[in-house]
């Protein structure tokens, strides 16, 4: 009973797909793009600069792009998690893969930092996508 009430409340408060989906999709493909189409240009520009620079510095440091590989549970978690995070960078990830900049694991602290930069760029873009959703849904200015 309580569960069905909560589900009904969530369904009521959830805005229609057409309100937020375009902003979230654009935010995924172009970091900060969701904010741009929601007329939050200053915030969009800062997100675009931060995520793009982080991704590009990750590439310059020869960071590794994860691929979805299976193994023991930790290996599977790391590889799938890393892959999803890389994928969250949107066009940056697709462009880097398409033009052959994706590379495997290399030993060394700088490469390791590069891998973290690439993954974190994607995670920051997920934060930006959630923010774009909240703005589009009217929960935030």
């Amino acid at each position, binding site marked *: 009973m309580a569960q069905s009430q909560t589900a009904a409340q969530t369904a009521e408060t959830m805005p229609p797909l057409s309100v937020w989906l375009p902003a979230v999709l654009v935010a995924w493909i172009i970091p900060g793009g969701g904010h741009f189409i929601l007329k939050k240009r200053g*915030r969009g520009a*800062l*997100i675009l*600069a*931060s*995520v793009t*620079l*982080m991704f590009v*510095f990750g*590439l*310059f*440091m*020869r960071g590794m792009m994860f691929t979805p590989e299976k193994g023991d549970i930790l290996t599977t978690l790391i590889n799938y998690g890393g892959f999803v995070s890389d994928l969250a960078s949107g066009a940056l990830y697709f462009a880097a893969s398409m033009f052959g*900049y994706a590379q495997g694991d290399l030993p060394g*602290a*700088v490469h390791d*930092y590069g891998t*973290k*930069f690439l993954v*974190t*760029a994607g995670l*920051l873009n997920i*934060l*930006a996508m*959630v*923010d774009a959703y909240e703005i589009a849904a009217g929960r*935030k*200015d």
Partner: protein
Amino acid sequence: MPKMNLSHFEAAFLFALFTSVVMGITSKKTDKERLNYGAYCFACFLGALVAIGWAMRLGHG
């Protein structure tokens, strides 16, 4: 493609900077709060960097 060879400090500094900017923007509701939270996150990142760096140095002997 150019290759970057950053030191630990430079890499951690840039990481802290970009992460703080996005966290500040996405976490708060007014511009003033965003600026304050971004600066707070950046200070925390750098404080943790220095503290953990010293802990590792002292712990290593």
